[in-house]
């Protein structure tokens, strides 16, 4: 048993409050070179992160050495001594939470046979199309996350995660598809088929001229733009620091009334579902934008205390030294659904360069991956090469409907979306 109590006891003498966060786990994975497994990896990992608070000064440190906790504790205290004091009203107390894990499959164990079957299934699926597999991979991990603090919080959560992905090529047309789940419900054959279809159907693309086009963004493409621009603009920290375009728009209409955006930490199929956030605050369903109206920003404890707000249970472990920072669990983009593939449009599977969007202004211009002209619900013709430019906030201002195909992509859950008259640069 790891000496969590000892860290808390010793830390409590030296600081007002102490928090210990440990993640440890085991994963197996394998990678394909073309259709053969070229390497198999087994990883054992351990991470300890300690946070101390003394007179409002917050310190953090992390270590991969389980025996090195005293060094880590001292480094956390030293770190706190440099920090600017914060208005601080304490770490959370135990909240009597339901201890049943969400989105966890207790039957999963790291097993190479599962990996091999996932890879084989994807290769079989891709072989339905005239393409070559270039690479692929599958992984399975089980992990335990433990959070304890000097106020008596002691939470532990098991997690399981399965991934599978494959890349294909026909001529110079590429296809990529992936799946993620907490359990073994991935269908590797259909993942392979989709990657095969994308490369195969994109072969022999035609040029299009520049101009305004109606487009359908697949969930993957939509998630890229939402993740790069909309999500950071909803962080309380960015809002109060003057780094969010939505900062002064609470209660106002900021996007199409057909769209709602909320964080659902209890989602059964979510990859980041949890009943407590990264600093032990109970999570909640958080409505960020309801029918186009901006309702809430997300907060962790530090930002909430500083600006007289309440934590929304949105802390995740992405900060320096393994510390908590504002993030999200499963952000869902929702609204009325309809068939959005029927009318003519350019369908966009993915985009290249979403991370180069301007997160403040929302302006972006990206290269399109697997664009097709669609009509009557069919992929009519592949487009050889095109860019799309615009502004994420303006793009979401008027939309032409959400598809019926929700997809979990990292910590986002989004459908495809239809947009009118987007600026496409052809060649």
């Amino acid at each position, binding site marked *: 048993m790891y000496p969590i109590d000892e860290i808390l006891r010793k830390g409590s003498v030296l600081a007002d409050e102490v928090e210990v966060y440990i993640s440890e786990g085991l994963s197996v994975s394998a990678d394909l070179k073309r259709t053969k497994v070229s390497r198999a990896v087994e990883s054992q990992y351990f991470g300890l992160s300690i946070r101390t608070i003394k007179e409002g000064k917050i310190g953090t440190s992390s270590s991969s050495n389980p025996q090195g906790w005293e060094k880590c504790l001292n480094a956390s205290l030293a770190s706190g001594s440099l920090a*600017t004091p914060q208005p601080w009203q304490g770490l959370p107390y135990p909240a009597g939470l339901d201890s049943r894990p969400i989105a966890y499959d207790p039957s999963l164990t790291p097993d190479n046979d599962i990996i091999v079957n996932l890879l084989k299934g994807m290769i079989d699926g891709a072989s339905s199309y005239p393409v070559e597999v270039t690479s692929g991979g599958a992984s399975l991990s089980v992990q335990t996350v433990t959070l304890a603090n000097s106020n008596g919080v002691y939470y532990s959560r098991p997690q399981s995660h399965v991934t599978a992905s494959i890349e294909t090529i026909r001529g110079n047309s590429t296809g990529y598809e992936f799946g993620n789940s907490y359990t073994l419900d991935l269908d590797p054959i259909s993942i392979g088929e989709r990657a095969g279809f994308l490369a195969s159907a994109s072969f022999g693309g035609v040029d299009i001229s520049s101009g305004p086009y109606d487009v359908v963004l697949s969930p993957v493409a939509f998630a890229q733009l939402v993740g790069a621009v909309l999500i950071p603009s909803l962080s309380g920290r960015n809002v109060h620091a003057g780094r969010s375009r939505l900062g002064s728009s609470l209660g106002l209409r900021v996007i199409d009334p057909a769209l709602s955006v909320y964080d659902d930490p209890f989602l059964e199929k979510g990859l980041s579902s949890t009943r407590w956030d990264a600093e032990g605050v109970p999570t909640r369903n958080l409505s960020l934008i309801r029918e186009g109206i901006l309702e809430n920003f997300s907060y962790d404890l530090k930002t909430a205390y500083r600006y007289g707000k309440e934590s929304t249970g949105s802390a995740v472990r992405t900060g320096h030294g393994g510390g908590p920072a504002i993030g999200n669990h499963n952000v869902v983009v929702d609204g009325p659904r309809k068939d959005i593939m029927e009318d003519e449009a350019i369908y966009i599977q993915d985009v290249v360069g979403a991370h180069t969007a301007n997160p403040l202004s929302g302006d972006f211009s990206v290269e399109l991956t697997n664009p097709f002209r669609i009509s009557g619900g069919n992929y009519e013709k592949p487009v050889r090469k095109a860019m799309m430019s615009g502004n994420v906030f303006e793009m979401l201002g008027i939309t032409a409907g959400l598809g019926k195909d929700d997809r979990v992509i990292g910590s986002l859950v989004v459908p495809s979306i239809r947009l009118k008259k987007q600026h496409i640069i052809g060649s």
Partner: protein
Amino acid sequence: MDGIRYYDIRHVCGQSTHIEIDNRVIESAGTSFFDHAVIRALSAKGWGILTVDNYSGTTDKELETLLGKAGRVSAITAEEVSLADAKRGIRNVPSMHEDPRDVSIGEKAGIMISIEKAATIEGIVNTRANYTERFEEVTFKDSSGAYEHYAICRSGFGIMAVASRAGSLQMGYERRHSIRGLNIRHQQDLGRSAAERAVALLSALPARGGTMNAVLDPELAGVFAHEAVGHASEGDLIQEGNSVLAGKGGERIGSPIVTIVDDPSLPEFGFEPCDAEGSRVDRTEIIRRGVVAGFLHSRETLAAVGNGHAGNARAMPGEPPLVRMSNTFIEPGESNTDELIAECRNGILLMGSRGGQVDPGRGVFQFNAEYGYLIENGECTRMVRDVSLSGEILQTLHSIQLCSKEKRMHQGYCGKGGQSVPVSDGAPHILLSGAVVGGSVPD
């Protein structure tokens, strides 16, 4: 260890220090510790790899057990991996003019606050500064008896300023990273220039999209070399058939003025004393005067593909090595920058970088400038914002018309396969004809 043809162990331990300042508040500052090892074993077919945290103190007997386990992990592999011979030997880590570890974190925080303060000018609503320092001690050994050990410290900083006017937000930023020691002293001017650019961008025009001539500054031209050529020359992508440069060795794909090089032995941010397989690092001319001259390799991809030398296997601590770029650049030409602008005539000057991405199999890349200027009648005129550029690898090098005389390198991190490694990119100013520019104003 029965049946193991080859093994190696790469153990990296060390510490990382950071300082994060947001609007003059020290949000966090401190030190964390890491200790990771990767054990690779090659048995009958492919790699069995173990990654282990907290490896320090592992005894020979324990290592033997781990190697046995790595051998068993490899049982599911089917690809027969061969390793090419590689030159061995380690280069000296360049000396540091001032070891960052000798300066207290308090003093470093004070300097960062002064840089941040310099960015606080009229029109700026937020400033953010960060400092990072990472000290790594690396030990490599393999079953052939190779043993290398070195220590390296990488440090640097970034400053970002946000300007606001009438609900509109823009940002300017500067960043510098180094392997040559503490680089934050006397850099207040960079804080100010980030702020001035953010304010200027509030008045900049949105760019007009379309096909036009473009001049790229050395930072963006470096990203161009990295995205448009570097990734597609990586031996693993060539081996998988996922690069348009596969099978193109010896072919002309660009104008004779274009030479593009990757060199991990240069004392720049992507420097490695030896690569992650203990191979000697050296210069690779990927494109020599417009012709595909070599690929970047690990020992495995060199054996499978040929055309080059090993020495570009790189890894994050605790991760298996991948074929990666290091210091990638376009060799300078003979023109003056003014000549490029004049020759461009009507088009756009693109400056700074917000990053880029490539699909090497399809041969299409995209990258984004931080800002730019219209070029009208051979002169730079109005400032433009949010402009990106895309292109096709096999055509684009033909469109380089001129290169200026002076090359500059810029530092950054490059992501691949979930791993981020330090790199530098560089180039002179370059003139591209017929570039596809993405802007939000219709042509």
